């Protein structure tokens, strides 16, 4: 057991940091606020193109798809550095983490050829059409319907909500019902310019352009738009979301923002008393979360299937985000009132940690059943 980075890992991190300092413009931190805004998306597309050219967009992908088979540690080091810098890849982090790998595993040759190369070049933005007004945590109750239309394809009707990046996305990774029950859900890869799709931005406290409603009115897609088989969505999504669950190293930005807030307080002689205790607690939570996440990557590296520890890492993340967010609000309130754009952007991202990509309470249920092996709740 070893907690040190080897020289290859260290030099890879240094390469990523050097790339960031060269490619992030002076006003990047102001731009970091509002993932999914037009301004950030334009920047992210340019940035991801440069990452791709430098071989740093998809290093962990197979060579065949533009990667170099780098191991899961490299992918995670990359993700840590990106997230800690405010995630300049914008919505494209999803392509890199799970949409690309999911298409490699379950996509048809035609789908792979059409969608994967633009992802590897950093040219395309996807959105994830899962949640609906009546289907949040209980995702399997989703109602958006995809019906066969005279044999040539499907007609989709329904509504999605909370869809990140929908305002700027080229393609939607969409869940829709082709029959009843959990095994009646299918995945469709739907270009966002297909007639019948309407996107409406939802104003929010978490930043410009982040969440949307997406309406599907008689949207016609060909048979070839389905990913995998009819009814295979649940199985596919379970696999891909296990990649997503620790895919965002939230602790990396939280820890960096905590350091920054403390440095700011020290400069003005405000780091004392309660601030010290609160900062220390938040620091311990961030570092515990970091190690939890590393333990998941270690398992992945060893080829072990994703286990319930991923839910524990997720919940630890929620706590760490919360402690850092509370620290800033209490000890450095200036940050959220024009004081520091990246601390503000962090606050906006941190408050969704317990909701986005699966609510915290659902993780707790999984931990109780699968990690502690407690008897299940009655249904």
């Amino acid at each position, binding site marked *: 057991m070893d907690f040190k980075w080897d020289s290859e890992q260290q030099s890879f991190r240094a390469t990523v940091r050097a790339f960031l300092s060269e490619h992030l413009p002076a006003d990047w931190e102001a731009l970091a606020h509002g993932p999914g805004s037009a301004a950030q998306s334009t920047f992210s597309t340019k940035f991801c193109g440069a990452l791709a050219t430098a071989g740093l967009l998809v290093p962990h992908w197979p060579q065949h798809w533009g990667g170099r088979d780098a191991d899961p540690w490299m992918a995670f080091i990359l993700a840590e550095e990106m997230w800690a810098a405010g995630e300049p890849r914008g919505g494209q982090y999803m392509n890199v983490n799970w949409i690309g790998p999911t298409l490699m595993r379950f996509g048809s040759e035609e789908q792979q050829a059409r969608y994967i190369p633009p992802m590897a070049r950093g040219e395309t933005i996807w959105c994830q059409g899962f949640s609906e007004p009546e289907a949040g945590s209980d995702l399997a109750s989703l109602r958006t319907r995809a019906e066969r239309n005279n044999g040539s394809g499907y007609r989709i009707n329904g509504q999605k909500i909370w869809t990140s990046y929908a305002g700027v996305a080229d393609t939607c990774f969409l869940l829709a019902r082709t029959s009843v029950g959990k095994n009646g859900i299918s995945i469709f890869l739907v270009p966002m310019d297909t007639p019948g799709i309407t996107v409406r931005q939802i104003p929010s406290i978490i930043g410009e352009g982040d969440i949307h409603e997406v309406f599907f009115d008689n949207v016609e897609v060909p048979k070839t738009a389905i990913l995998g088989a009819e009814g295979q969505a649940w199985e596919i999504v379970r696999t891909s979301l296990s990649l997503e669950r620790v895919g965002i190293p939230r602790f990396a930005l939280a820890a960096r923002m905590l350091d920054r807030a403390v440095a700011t307080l020290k400069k003005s002689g405000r780091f004392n008393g309660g601030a010290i205790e609160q*900062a220390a607690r938040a620091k311990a939570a961030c*570092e515990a979360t970091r190690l939890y996440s590393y*333990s998941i990557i270690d398992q992945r590296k060893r080829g072990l299937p994703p286990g319930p520890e991923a839910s524990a890492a997720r919940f630890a993340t929620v706590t760490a985000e919360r402690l850092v967010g509370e620290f800033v609000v209490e000890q450095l309130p200036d940050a959220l009132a024009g004081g520091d754009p990246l601390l503000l952007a962090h606050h906006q991202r941190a408050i969704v940690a317990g909701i986005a990509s699966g609510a915290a309470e659902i993780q707790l249920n999984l931990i109780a059943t699968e990690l*502690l*092996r407690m008897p299940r709740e009655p249904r």
Partner: protein
Amino acid sequence: MDFTLTSDQSALTSAIDRLATHFEAMPTDFYGFTLAGTQLEKELTDGEYFDIAGIPDLGPLTATMAVERLAWLPCTAEIALSMLVRPHLATELPRPFAVIENGRPGRFVATAKTLLIINGDDIGVAHPSVDAVEAVDSLYAYPMGTFTGNASVTTLSGSDAANVRKWLRIALAAEISGLLHAAIASTVEHLSIRRQFGRSLGTFQALRHRMAECTVLAGGVRWLVLKAASTEDEGDAALAALHAQESATRIVYDLHQMLGAMGMTLEHPLHLWTYRIKALLSELGGRGGQAAAVAALCFNSEAA
């Protein structure tokens, strides 16, 4: 970064596990506050387990795993200080060890051959005669004792004291980590068996979620202490000790709450772990002390 155990680490942890399993299987027909592990102490001595940290292929990280595993046991012996602190003193000193912090009663003091005496920032070493120490009754599930102060004390240099303090923090966090594990496992077992309102208590979400939160906290403590033992970094040690005391405070409350009145008895073993934890909550300055250390050691990067 690689969390697989080396073959030496695996062999040692398996051996400790076998030894511990044997003690776990023994009936704890016991109704007192403290369950002293005299036989455990003997087997650890005979097997030379107190010297693990000094063996190059094992080192303090493996010793930390051993401390943690042995803390699951209902019985207790002076293990953590001997395995983790004693090897970091300049000369070979006799065990058992105990700590006297600012004159307060301490664990294992009445039988200690070496005392670490903490007074503010100073740490001294003393070898008490039998009449300089005295056992005291307490609720804590360790044998507690006081030091009457009649022994010559050798004060450690500033750097030696800092090193000892670092290993004291790691020993504290490792012991808490193991105690938390055992206390949580014991509570989960109770919640799975005990039925109310026609169903097992473990099916009530209000309890399931609290248990899940407890186990996430305890897992975090474990990772931090393993890292600290591996990097031997002062800041990492302070983080581990802080997270251990912080998490344990909350977990101990929750676990007792979930056992109902059964958790108040000496018949149920929960108190053996939770009252050991309570003894550890105030050590080394408690949460405030660890937080001050974290603030001093872990926030020096101006690069943020």
